[in-house]
């Protein structure tokens, strides 16, 4: 797939843009994506500061990056091509960098895609908090939809507090 903006480089970033209730998909190369992202991101702030603040804290700006199909892991320099040759990843971040492709591969070799079993105490601690955050975010979404902004603000603060807690523990 070729980048839709410059029509030269291969498209590695796949974006879904939701603006004014219309959804558009964009397939861009890394360079073009960086430019586009900045422009749109700034636009989204002009709506309503309070609401944007909440939306932002929920998870996303109106731009949702579906997936970035990197060909190289920024952390260790491993490429997907090299991984295919040697069958070993270079670092734990490779799992993020090659998420799309690895996910398919993992599903094929393991016949499963989600871990069941032991959770380490440390990562497990934040996992529990992360689950709490997810629940609060659902409530927050609800509150926003009902325009219960006081509740929303309260939930947003709670989420922030939990997020800080994760940061402190990290």
């Amino acid at each position, binding site marked *: 797939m070729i980048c839709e903006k410059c029509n030269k480089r291969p498209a590695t970033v796949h974006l879904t843009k939701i603006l004014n209730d219309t959804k558009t998909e964009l397939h861009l190369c890394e360079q073009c994506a960086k430019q586009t992202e900045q422009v749109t991101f700034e636009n989204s702030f002009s709506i309503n500061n309070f609401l944007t603040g909440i939306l932002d804290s929920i998870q996303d700006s109106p731009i949702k990056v579906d997936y970035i199909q990197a060909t190289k892991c920024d952390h260790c*320099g491993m490429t997907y091509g090299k991984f295919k040759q040697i069958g070993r990843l270079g670092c*734990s971040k490779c799992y993020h960098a090659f998420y799309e492709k690895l996910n398919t591969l993992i599903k094929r070799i*393991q016949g499963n*895609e989600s*871990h*069941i079993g*032991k959770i380490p*105490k440390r*990562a497990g601690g934040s996992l529990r908090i992360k689950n709490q955050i997810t629940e609060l975010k659902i409530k927050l979404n609800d509150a926003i939809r009902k325009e219960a902004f006081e509740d929303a603000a309260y939930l947003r603060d709670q989420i922030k507090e939990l997020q800080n807690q994760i940061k402190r523990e990290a």
Partner: protein
Amino acid sequence: MTKWMNELGPDGDIIISSRIRLARNLEEFPFPIALTKGKSKEVHELISDTILKGNSSLKNECKFIELNEISSLERQVLVEKHIISPYLAANYEKSAALLNQDESISIMINEEDHIRIQCLLPGFQLENAFDIADKVDDVLEEGVKYAFDEKLGYLTSCPTNIGTGIRASVMIHLPALSMVGYMNRILQAANQIGLAVRGLYGEGTEFIGNVFQISNQLTLGRSEKEIIQNLKDVTKQIIQKERDARSTILSNNKIQLEDKIYRSFGILCNARILTTQECMKLLSDVRLGMDLGILKDVSTENVNEIMVLIQPSYLQKQANKSLSSNERDIRRATMVREKLKY
């Protein structure tokens, strides 16, 4: 002393040993293949400090070995005893290990993953081995932060180990099933339910001495307990089939079986030259003879031990020099004669 070689465990007539191996990685370091020598030393220190300066009982039980500080012969002996993996030995420039006194616990550092916790026990005791490995894992986690993903579980260098990172295996002696030509069916059936069957020294090694290693292949999407239970259930069935085959042979062809066993014992007690291949084959017959009570004056533990003592590196370490293949065959025969004389 190496526990699995010198003790007879549960179902020890058929199961030589049970092993649990857990793969773990540190969050802040690249995986071993992408580690510089300097960084790999940092990994060594971090892990050895966690164990040796921690407050678990492992502190006093374990010794730390840099693999580039011992000879290649010593490394190979550890491989032949199944205490470290062939890969760890091959990667000696960057690797290290922590071993406890009876070598039932081995923490391999910078194998394919930063940490491979192995617990190896005699006989059929996968759960005990898991409990020990699991505790070692908890101790390690007090000092290091693991690479763990909520969805994918423990992250490993190879996606085939992801999730639980567990490899459970049994080393099993199946002479009667081999004699009655049932092994191929076992191999096929095991494969179909996600188990791998390998030779004595793992992947790519031949099936010698009727010794097989059976292990789980899948690590993601099922708990450690389920994985162990699955292997345990299948192994129990195989044990039963082997016992059935033994009693069938014993009741239908007793004299032929005795003849085979006594001949093999006779060769082992008298031969002056023995190749590994021949020796393992004869030892398999002798082990069967002991397990069936046909041979009385030798013990099964003894055979387990001999199976390792006759391996090429072990013989050379005993001789304290490198030996040609012919020299090894002669020393092997001597070693076996002495050991069977008790």
